[in-house]
């Protein structure tokens, strides 16, 4: 059997798919196995098709693959939707008594396990537990010790009382025993356990946790898929540290609330998706020109307009790099993995305050709603450093007062960064404005001051380039003639694709770029390569365009914009095809 095991539960929205999948993922994590989850979901509360998929192995997993070994299907559509991933020997668990599954068709070569999930659940205490019966059955198929399920059930249902937990354990065992009793089929799976303790976390949660760690104390947002988890994570947690979350009336208010808090000296953040960024772009320019440190998270989803709200896309890069009228520097950091969502958020807050700029954290749906296991040390809080930049206090403010004793929040400095006085600082009272302003923050249309302020703001970027490390993350064979570039959540699939390619004797160099602006100069790396392929989830190659612009070199592109993330095996095939095409044409 392969080293990894791929499992899914699918049905209609409202079937409890998400929570059941999460229980199984948690059980595997608690058993010391690595887990990577993904979701197929629709923007509706009931009906449609939704699935929760789990890939697990002893070694770290960071991608989905095109293979499904065990599928719990609550609807025929669940089977139909996954035909490409199911293979000979795949096991499909279903309840033939359910009306939607009465005429079920198990594809040839696959094993259908017809289990009276509802009836067994009712015997254990209630039909609502039918999915847990299915989990028990899955444990039997996968030869996964059912005790591991118990702690996950405890975590999920502990708050509802011991009796509920016990009933669920009973339901799980009913499913397990049914398989043992009714099917003498030998299943080819053996899910081993280890003593490792892993945490199971998604990208949105990692961003929220990173924010708290970084000292963020104010969050304002408006619920939007797939960014809502950030807000839900912070609510109830940030208060423990003296912070607060405001659910705003819209994204216009959200960014303005966050801006106000930042002006008052708080580390402040908002998170949204593309449609929210559209609205926030109105205030973005004010944030930037008033030199207010602010972290704006864009968890990208498929656009434009309402697009495909529950589908993957990396289509907002241009918007983050160039959005808004006029010209003003902004930073754009793009975490490349779920643990990096944590670290890049921490870094974003430091960039925001050190350079007094808005910082976009460019995440995407594929990492935001995906859970992955990590050692707790991946989030070592002792490593978190907070740099607040040029903040002045009652004493140090003196050197930034003009001859009339007025504070100069936009003082022209060599590094472009001006002093910052939090309200309440004596002698610090000053004006900020979206109008072009002088060193005092007052409106001006003076031609030389205009030029000096524009240059000052741009100088901050140069300072950052000299000061910070914007290096890409390096994978694969550094000496290879083939260079793959990517950004955002594609890193995991690419890293695993490298293994597939290696099996076929193809070595490539892969640079995963987490900084979109300021960004690394990749000219040397690109000139050293014969083939450069840029991989991203959009149609027009927004990052590829940037790379071509920076390096004056044409690159090859692999683009995916069907709403589904890259899968490791599929990506390896695409890279091979791109390289083969090159050979043919050469």
């Amino acid at each position, binding site marked *: 059997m392969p080293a990894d095991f791929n499992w899914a539960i699918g049905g209609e929205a409202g079937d409890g798919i998400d929570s059941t999948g999460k229980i199984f993922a948690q059980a595997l*994590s608690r058993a010391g196995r690595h887990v990577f989850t993904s979701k197929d979901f629709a923007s509706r509360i009931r009906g449609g098709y939704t699935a929760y998929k789990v890939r697990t192995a002893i070694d770290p997993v960071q991608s989905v693959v095109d293979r499904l070994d065990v599928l719990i299907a609550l609807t025929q559509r669940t089977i139909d939707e996954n035909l490409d991933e199911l293979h000979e020997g795949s096991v499909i668990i279903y309840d033939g008594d359910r009306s939607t599954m009465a005429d079920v068709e198990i594809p040839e070569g696959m094993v259908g396990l017809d289990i009276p999930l509802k009836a067994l659940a009712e015997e254990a205490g209630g039909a609502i537990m039918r999915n847990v019966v299915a989990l028990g059955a899955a444990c039997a198929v996968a030869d996964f010790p059912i005790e591991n399920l118990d702690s996950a059930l405890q975590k999920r249902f502990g708050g509802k009382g011991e009796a509920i937990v016990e009933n669920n354990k009973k339901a799980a065992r009913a499913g397990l025993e049914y398989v043992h009793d009714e099917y003498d089929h030998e299943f080819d799976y053996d899910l081993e356990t280890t003593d490792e*303790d*892993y*945490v*199971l*976390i998604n990208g949105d*949660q990692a961003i929220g*946790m990173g924010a*708290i*760690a970084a000292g963020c*104390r*104010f969050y*304002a947002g408006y619920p939007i898929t797939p960014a809502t988890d950030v807000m839900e994570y912070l609510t109830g947690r940030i208060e423990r540290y*003296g*912070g*607060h979350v*405001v659910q*705003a*009336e819209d994204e*216009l*208010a*959200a960014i*303005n*609330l966050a*801006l*106000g*808090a*930042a*002006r*008052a*000296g*708080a*580390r*402040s953040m908002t998170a949204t998706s593309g449609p929210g960024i559209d609205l926030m772009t*109105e*205030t973005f320019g*004010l944030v930037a020109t*008033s030199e207010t440190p602010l972290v704006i998270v864009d968890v990208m989803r498929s656009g434009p307009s309402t697009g495909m709200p529950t589908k993957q896309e990396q289509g907002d890069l241009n918007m983050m790099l160039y959005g808004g009228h006029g010209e003003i520097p902004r930073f754009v950091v793009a975490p490349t993995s779920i643990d990096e969502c944590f670290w890049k958020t921490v870094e974003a807050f430091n960039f925001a305050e050190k350079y007094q700029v808005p910082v976009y954290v460019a995440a995407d749906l594929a990492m935001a709603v995906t859970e992955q296991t990590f050692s*707790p040390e991946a*989030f070592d*809080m*002792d490593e*978190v*450093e*907070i740099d607040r930049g040029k903040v002045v206090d009652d004493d140090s403010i003196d050197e930034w007062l003009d001859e*009339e004793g007025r504070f100069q929040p936009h003082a022209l400095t060599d590094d472009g960064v001006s002093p910052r006085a*939090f*309200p*309440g*600082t004596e*002698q*610090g*009272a*000053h*004006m*900020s*404005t*979206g109008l072009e302003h002088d060193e005092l923050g*007052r*409106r001006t249309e003076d031609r030389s001051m205009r030029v000096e302020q524009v240059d000052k703001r741009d100088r901050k970027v140069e300072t950052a380039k000299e000061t910070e490390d914007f290096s890409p993350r390096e994978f694969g064979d550094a000496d290879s003639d083939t260079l793959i570039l990517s950004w955002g959540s594609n890193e995991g699939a690419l890293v695993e694709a490298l293994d597939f390619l290696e099996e076929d004797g193809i070595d490539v160099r892969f640079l995963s770029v987490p900084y979109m602006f300021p960004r690394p100069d990749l000219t040397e790396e690109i000139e050293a390569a014969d083939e450069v392929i840029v991989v991203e989830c959009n149609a027009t190659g927004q990052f590829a365009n940037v790379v071509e612009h920076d390096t004056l070199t044409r690159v090859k592109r692999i683009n995916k914009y069907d709403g589904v993330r890259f899968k490791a095996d599929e990506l390896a095939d695409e890279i091979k095809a791109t390289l083969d095409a090159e050979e043919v044409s050469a």
Partner: protein
Amino acid sequence: MSSNVRFTDFKSDKQPTWCPGCGDFGTMNGIMKALANSGTDPDNTFMVAGIGCSGKIGTYMHSYAIHGVHGRSLPVAAGVKLANPDLTVVAAGGDGDGYSIGAGHFIHAVRRNVDMAYTVMDNRIYGLTKGQASPTSREDFETSTTPEGPKQPPVNPLALSLAAGGTFIAQSFATDHKRHAEIVQEAIEHDGFGFVNVFSPCVTFNDVDTYDYFRDNLVDLADTDHDPTDYDAAKEKILDSSKEYEGVIYKDESSVSYEEKFGVDQNMSDIPSGAPDDAMDLVREFY
């Protein structure tokens, strides 16, 4: 905070560019007096202004301030206050800023009831763009963009506020200096969202809602037996379109501010130099 703050301490050395005779002069002076009388000082005061003639107010005053995006002053002000509840926060804008482009925020700011004051310089006209109808312009008010009048009833901001659960609803007149300053001070000191609609005549573009008009038609509630804590009496005054009222029209004395309800009481600018001491507990939650 120093104890001998004068209202002129809140004045900047920048000369206003408002038209001579503009109501905004009186509005601003009253705000500065109210701030001084309420016991704050410029270093502990935050002014938030929107766009339009009214939006320039922050420039002519001396305090921490931001002159923001059109219509968004209220969320900015709420953010400032929540991040540092020790500050005195005043938002100022015009009828266009507050009741047109920012109308959505107005309703929600009222509902939210953050402890701050909001003064709207209501001149019933768009002045800075040289005389177009505003949301409070009369139905038959002829302007360059509404030659036969807007043909829509004007917004009643007091009624909007009452409907949204307002806890402090007042109206003042820019040149009635003493009353205006008193009313704004009461709004600042109110425990919640203190809303004051200020009649601030535009001498250049509005020849209907003039100083004379307001002088002739204003009824000061202080001269009547109006009880601002009486909701029904307040409702009656607010819906009475036959008169213009000056004074505190409604005041909920049991108002509890948003900050108090949520226990937001810290200056959020104070943070450690690393992650919180117990931050690994956040990680362990994900076991």
